[in-house]
């Protein structure tokens, strides 16, 4: 069972307290904006880790569900009113649940393959969803994109989004913490170590993998929804962007796969640098080169990630 230890509780309280205090103490919009993106990536990395970090199956399809979440929210609120502006946030759990459940049949097909083929098939999912976003014009308006109604939060416009992202990240961490200490967590680790043996010992491996998959997809779709609402406008290339996903994967590797706090720590290190690089190099393509370099350095120098390396030291 997942036990609540005093030190763990203290750690969670400090992190959560600091995260809540940040936008209240630091008010410049651009800093809160960076905070929103940091939490977004931390959430995405935590969600990715929940499936790929614990099962060992590398999924490269996360951006697909991020995009579906964004489109689901955008299209829903083109039909109903956003009310005082907070209503989309209340609908998010429904979107997460719906997308998570809807992804299970797809996952069942994808999980028939192993290791490298699985990675490729999930990457295909990303291209499939992007293509659908382009082609299903009656729903998505194709390459024109979809506009999301804008709320009229008076001052500190970014704050509600910040807290929404924080809420999802906290939920992701809570789920990860719970799964890690549960029977499901042990089953997932058994899959990662030796799937055939685990199956032989009577572990229902497919069921375990599907649950972890559904959870990671649900969290991802919710984050996508907040992101779409924050940007007001989404189109296929931005909503289903391989770069966003690969960023989250990179952060998970940096922080440490299969750890609770690792993905978030990776995001805290990388996102501010990324946002700075984006504003400085965004126009020229040097941004991509910088991204590639950071990537290579992390994979070659720190393949285990920060948290596991610290723990061993």
């Amino acid at each position, binding site marked *: 069972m997942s036990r609540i230890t005093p030190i763990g509780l203290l750690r969670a309280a400090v992190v959560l307290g600091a995260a809540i205090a940040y936008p209240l103490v630091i008010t410049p919009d651009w800093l809160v904006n960076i905070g929103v993106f940091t939490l977004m990536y931390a959430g995405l990395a935590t969600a990715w880790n929940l499936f790929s970090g614990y099962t060992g199956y590398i999924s490269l399809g996360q951006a697909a569900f991020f995009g579906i979440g964004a489109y689901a929210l955008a299209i829903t609120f083109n039909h109903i009113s956003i009310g005082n502006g907070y209503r989309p946030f209340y609908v998010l759990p429904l979107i997460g649940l719906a997308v998570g459940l809807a992804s299970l049949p797809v996952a069942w097909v994808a999980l028939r393959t192993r290791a*490298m083929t699985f990675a490729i098939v999930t990457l295909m999912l990303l291209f499939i969803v992007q293509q659908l976003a382009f082609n299903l014009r009656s729903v998505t308006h194709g390459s024109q994109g979809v506009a999301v109604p804008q709320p009229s939060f008076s001052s500190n416009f970014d704050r509600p989004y910040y807290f929404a992202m924080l809420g999802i990240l906290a939920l992701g961490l809570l789920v990860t913490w719970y799964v890690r200490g549960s029977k499901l967590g042990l089953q997932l680790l058994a899959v990662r170590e030796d799937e055939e043996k685990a199956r032989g010992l009577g572990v229902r491996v497919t069921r375990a993998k599907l649950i972890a998959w559904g959870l990671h997809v649900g969290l991802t779709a919710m984050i996508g929804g907040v992101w779409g609402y924050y940007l007001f406008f989404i189109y296929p290339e931005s909503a289903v962007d391989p770069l966003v996903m690969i960023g989250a994967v990179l952060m998970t590797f940096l922080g440490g796969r299969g750890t609770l706090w690792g993905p978030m720590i990776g995001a805290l290190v990388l996102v501010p640098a990324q946002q700075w690089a984006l504003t400085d190099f965004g126009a020229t393509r040097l941004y991509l080169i910088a991204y590639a370099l950071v990537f290579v350095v992390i994979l070659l120098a720190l393949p285990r990630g920060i948290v596991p390396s610290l723990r061993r030291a």
Partner: protein
Amino acid sequence: MHIVVQACILGVLTGGVYALMASGLTLVFGVMRVINVAQGALVILSAYLSYVLFKDVHVDPFLSVLIVAPFMFALGVAVQLIFIRSLRSEQAEELSLLITWALALGIEGSLGAIFQTTYRATNPGYANSAWTIFGYQVSVVRAYAFALSVGILVLLYLLLARTRFGRAVRATVQNPSSARLLGVDADRVRALAFGVGVATASAAGAVYGVLYPFNPGSHYDLISRLLSIVVLGGLGSVGGAVAAALVLGVVEALVAVEISPVWSSFSYFVVLIAILIVRPQGLFGVRERVL
């Protein structure tokens, strides 16, 4: 009927070019269990090299293969030796997926910095001419591209089937540890195989620039096709990749004329998913084991 036959001709000719690109990808996987996500970016890089050679030095795009392919071979060997060999962790195979992705981003970024994002195309004088055979139009460029692809695939087959290097490669594919015990220098075989895989793809890239307009971001479209092809054919099977490329080329062309060009590239994914439900290991593949 006429339009269907015409579409099949187009599909086979296009499929031949993709077969060449995909064979390099699947060969590399067979030898070292590495999926080179940068294969598409390397193809685009070769398309740019050939474009520059044509525009500034007036080298015919088909002849430029002779210059581009050796260069890309050297680049492939360097990538293997510098990046992929250095991955130490026990999950080196999965990590290689990410490091080649980083390579793709690096190439995309560098090309973008040099050429910006405008679409380019290599336009030799014969780019738009076509032969008429039994009433069917056959584009000269596509026919040449197909012939070049078949030629290189035959060379690749001879290399794998008849030479000492080819035997070492096949031995490594079948059983890496036994191959090493029998004196196969694994590092050397891997580096050369990676070089060959990249070089074959880039030969196709030189003519890709004549067939389609391209920009630095085109590699995502390419890699999604190439990955569908190698998974459909069965990872590691060169023959499977060639067969899958031809099948998908024809399906794509048929969908374009019978349904809508908008959905033609989507047909790749539909065929792939359908096959995966029936046969997860692809047409000619062997089921992957979890290590």
